[in-house]
C-alpha cells in the first residue's frame, strides 16, 4: 500500500495567491463563455435541421398537392350500344377510332335529348366534353364481339379541360373560350355531374397504363414505364452486383499493393464522380452503334446504368469488407482454412449487410437517372404497353419512370403536368420501398462486435 504516503488533497492553491473561486456551483467567466458557445452551436444545429425539415415539408406538400389530381379522373359513365353494322362500317375506315368516337358522341347526344336536358347543347359540345373514347371502345368490341348490339356500360375518360374543371384547375373565371372547351359547355357539365353521368373515379389507368398522345391526357399511364424501370434494375442488379463484389473482393483481399492497383483504385473513385450523361454517350457509342443492340431497350438502359452503379457498389463493398475485424480472418486462417475459404465462409457473410445496402442505394440512384437514357432513345413518346415476355421485356422499346416524367413535364397540355407530379409520387414510392428494404436487410443481418 503506497498511496498512504501521498499528501492529502487540499483546496488551497500552492502559491498562496488570492484564490480564484473554484467552486463548482459558481460558474466563472471562461466556463460561461464556453457554455454559451456550446449553446449557440446547438442552436445552429437545430436551425440547420429545421431548415432541412422545412424544405422537406414544402417539397412533400407541393409534390402531393400537385400530384394527387393525376390519381383521379373524370369519366363519362353511360350505357352505349354498338350495332354490328356500325362496327363493320367503322372498321372499314382508315381512322377507325375517330369513327367510333363519332358514333359514341351521336349516341350520347340522342340519349341526352331524349332525357330532356334543360341546357342548350349540340354535337360539338359533347365532342368537347368527351375525351378520346375511340381507342377504348374499339379495343373492347374487338375483344368482345358477342357484346355487339347490346347495351354495355362504359366509363370513358372526359377531355382534359373537363377533368381540370372537376378538380379545380380550370374555373369559369380563369378559362378562355377555345375550341377545346367553351364556358357555355360547363352548364352541361354541371347538369351531367348532377345526374351522375360525369363523375370522378380513381384513375387505375394512370398506374397500369402506357403513355398516350399529347391530345389524350386522360389515357396516359405510368405502368409501362414502371415495368421498363423494373427490367433495367434487373439488368443492373445481375451485372453490377457480381462484377462489383468480385472486383472489390479481389482488390481488397488478394491484390498486391503496387502502382497498378493504386491506379485502379484512384480511377474507381474518379468514376464514381463522373456525370451520368457521359455514360449515356458511352452507351450510345458502344452498345448501340458498335454492338448493334436495339435502341430504346431496357437492356441497353440497364447496361449504361450498370456502368454508372459499379463504382458505387465497389466502394461500398470494399468499405464493408474492411469493416470486418481482422481477427475473423486470422481465426479462419489459423484453423487451416485457405484464403478463399476464409473470405467466402467468414468475411463475406459478415460484410453482406453493408454490400446489400450499398447495392440498393446504387440501384436507387440508377432508378432516378434520366440523362443517360436521353441518349439511348428511352426519352420521348414510347407507348408500347406491356412487354409480352421476359425477353421482350429486355429488348422491346420501353421508357423508364424518370424519363416518362420528363416527357410529360414538357407537354403543352397542363393535365400532363399533373401526370408528371403523379409520376414523381409513384417514383418516390418505388424508391422508398427500395430504401426500406435496405434498412430491413441491414437490421436483419447486422452483427456488432
Amino acid at each position, binding site marked *: 500500500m503506497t498511496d498512504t504516503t501521498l499528501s492529502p488533497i487540499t483546496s488551497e492553491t500552492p502559491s498562496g495567491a488570492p484564490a480564484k473561486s473554484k467552486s463548482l456551483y459558481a460558474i466563472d467567466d471562461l466556463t460561461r463563455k464556453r457554455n454559451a458557445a456550446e449553446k449557440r452551436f446547438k442552436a445552429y444545429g437545430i436551425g440547420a435541421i429545421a431548415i432541412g425539415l422545412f424544405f422537406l415539408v414544402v417539397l412533400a406538400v407541393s409534390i402531393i398537392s400537385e400530384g394527387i389530381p393525376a390519381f383521379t379522373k373524370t369519366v363519362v359513365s353511360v350505357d352505349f350500344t354498338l350495332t354490328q353494322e356500325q362496327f363493320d362500317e367503322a372498321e372499314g375506315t*382508315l381512322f377507325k377510332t375517330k369513327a367510333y368516337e363519332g358514333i359514341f358522341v351521336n349516341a350520347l347526344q340522342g340519349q341526352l335529348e331524349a332525357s330532356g336536358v334543360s341546357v342548350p347543347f349540340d354535337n360539338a359540345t359533347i365532342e368537347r366534353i368527351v375525351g378520346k373514347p375511340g381507342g377504348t371502345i374499339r379495343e373492347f368490341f374487338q375483344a368482345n364481339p358477342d357484346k355487339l348490339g347490346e347495351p354495355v356500360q362504359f366509363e370513358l375518360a372526359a377531355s382534359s379541360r373537363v377533368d381540370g374543371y372537376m378538380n379545380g384547375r380550370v374555373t369559369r373565371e380563369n378559362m378562355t373560350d377555345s375550341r377545346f372547351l367553351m364556358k357555355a359547355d360547363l352548364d352541361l357539365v354541371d347538369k351531367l355531374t348532377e345526374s351522375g353521368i360525369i363523375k370522378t373515379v380513381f384513375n387505375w389507368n394512370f398506374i397500369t397504363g402506357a403513355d398516350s398522345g399529347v391530345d389524350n391526357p386522360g389515357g396516359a399511364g405510368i405502368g409501362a414505364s414502371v415495368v421498363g424501370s423494373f427490367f433495367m434494375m434487373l439488368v443492373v442488379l445481375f*451485372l453490377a452486383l457480381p462484377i462489383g463484389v468480385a472486383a472489390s473482393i479481389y482488390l481488397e483481399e488478394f491484390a498486391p499493393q503496387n502502382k497498378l492497383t493504386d491506379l485502379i483504385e484512384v480511377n474507381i473513385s474518379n468514376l464514381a464522380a463522373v456525370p451520368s450523361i457521359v455514360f449515356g454517350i458511352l452507351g450510345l457509342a458502344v452498345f448501340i452503334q458498335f454492338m448493334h443492340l436495339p435502341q430504346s431497350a431496357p437492356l441497353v438502359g440497364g447496361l449504361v446504368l450498370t456502368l454508372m452503379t459499379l463504382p458505387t457498389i465497389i466502394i461500398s463493398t470494399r468499405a464493408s469488407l474492411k469493416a470486418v475485424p481482422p481477427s475473423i480472418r486470422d481465426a479462419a486462417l489459423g484453423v487451416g482454412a485457405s484464403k478463399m475459404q476464409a473470405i467466402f465462409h467468414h468475411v463475406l457473410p459478415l460484410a453482406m449487410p453493408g454490400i446489400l445496402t450499398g447495392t440498393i442505394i446504387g440501384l436507387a440512384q440508377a432508378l432516378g437517372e434520366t440523362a443517360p437514357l436521353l441518349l439511348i432513345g428511352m426519352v420521348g413518346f414510347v*407507348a*408500347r404497353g406491356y412487354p409480352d415476355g421476359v*425477353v421482350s421485356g429486355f429488348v422491346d422499346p420501353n421508357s423508364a419512370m424518370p424519363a416518362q416524367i420528363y416527357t410529360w413535364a414538357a407537354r403543352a397540355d397542363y393535365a400532363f403536368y399533373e401526370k408528371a407530379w403523379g409520376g414523381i409520387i409513384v417514383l418516390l414510392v418505388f424508391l422508398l420501398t427500395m430504401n426500406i428494404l435496405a434498412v430491413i436487410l441491414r437490421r436483419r443481418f447486422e452483427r456488432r462486435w
Partner: protein
Amino acid sequence: MKFTTLVSATALAVASTAFVGAAQARDQVQVAGSSTVLPYASIVAEAFGENTDFPTPVVESGGSSAGLKRFCEGVGENTIDVANASRKIREKEIKACAEAGVKDIIEVRIGYDGIVFASQKDGPAFTAFQPEDVFNALGAKVLVDGKIVDNPYNNWAEFNADLPDVGIAAFIPGTKHGTREVFEEKVLAVGCEKTGALQAMIDSGMSEDDAEDACIDVRADGKSTDIDGDYTETLARIDSNPNGIGVFGLAFYENNQDKLKVATMGGIAPSTATIASGEYPVSRPLYFYIKKAHIGVIPGLKEYAQFFIADEIAGPQGPLAQYGLVSDPELAAVQASVEAEETMK
C-alpha cells in the same frame, strides 16, 4: 488469375445477352427529331398503334438538327427510320447522309406551324406588333437616325409609341431549334430590311451576305434570352416575368390560352385560319424525312407515313389540325409523292 477468368466470363455473358438482343429484328418504326413536330408525331403514333396491326412507333425528341444527324448515321436496323424536322433539310446534311450511305430520302411536308409571340395573361398587350419592332428590340445592331449602332433600346415604347411602355425582355428559341431559323428568317431578316437597316449596312460597305448575317444577330446584353429547352420552359420564364414576351408554336399557345396573351402581327391574331390564308405572316412548314432503304425492311414504315398524311389525320378536320397544325393545302400532292416513294434529288 481468378479475377481475369471472372472478368472474361462476365464479359462473355454480357456479350451473349447482347447478341440475343441484336438477333431480334426490329418490328416498330423508330422516329426522332424536332420537338415542334413531336406532339403531332405522338398523336399519329398513338392513333397508328390503335388503328392498325402494327406496333406503336417510338418517337424521340431532341431538335431538328440532332434528329437529322442521327438520321444520317447510316442505313440499318440500329438507325432511325424517320427524322422529324421543323425546317427543310440542308444541303450539308444531304451530303453527310449520302456519305454515310443514306442516299434515297423521301421528304414529306405535313403542314404548317405558326410562330406566335405571347406575354403573360395579365401582362402588357402587344397589339401593334410588326417584324420591324421585333428587330428593333432584339437585333444586335439597329438603325437609329440613319446610322447603324449597337442596339440602344431598353423599352418597347422607345421606337414604337403604340407598344407598351415596358422593358424589353424576350425569350426566343435557342439555336438548336428549327424554330430559331424561322424566327431569324421571317422576323429578324424581314424587320431588318423593312427598317432600312439592311440597306444602311450595305451602304456602309458591308457585302450583302455579311449584312444579311448581321441582320439576324441577336443582342447579347441580356435583354434577349435563348431558351434551349421546350416551350414549357419559355412558359415558365414568362410566368415569372410580367413584362416578358416569348416565342411559341401556335399549337402550344392554343393549349395554354388560359395563361398567355398573344401578340397580334400587324393587327392579325394568329390562328389556323389566318395562317392558312397567309394573313398572319410568320409560319413555317413542318417535315419528316424517310429512309427509302428502310421501306419494306421495317414493317409499317410506309404505312406510318401514309397514315400520317391521310386526309383523316392531317386534313383540316383531323386530330392534328384540332391540336393546332395548319393543314397543307397541297396535301394531295404530298400523298401522291409518298405513294410513289419519290426521293429528293
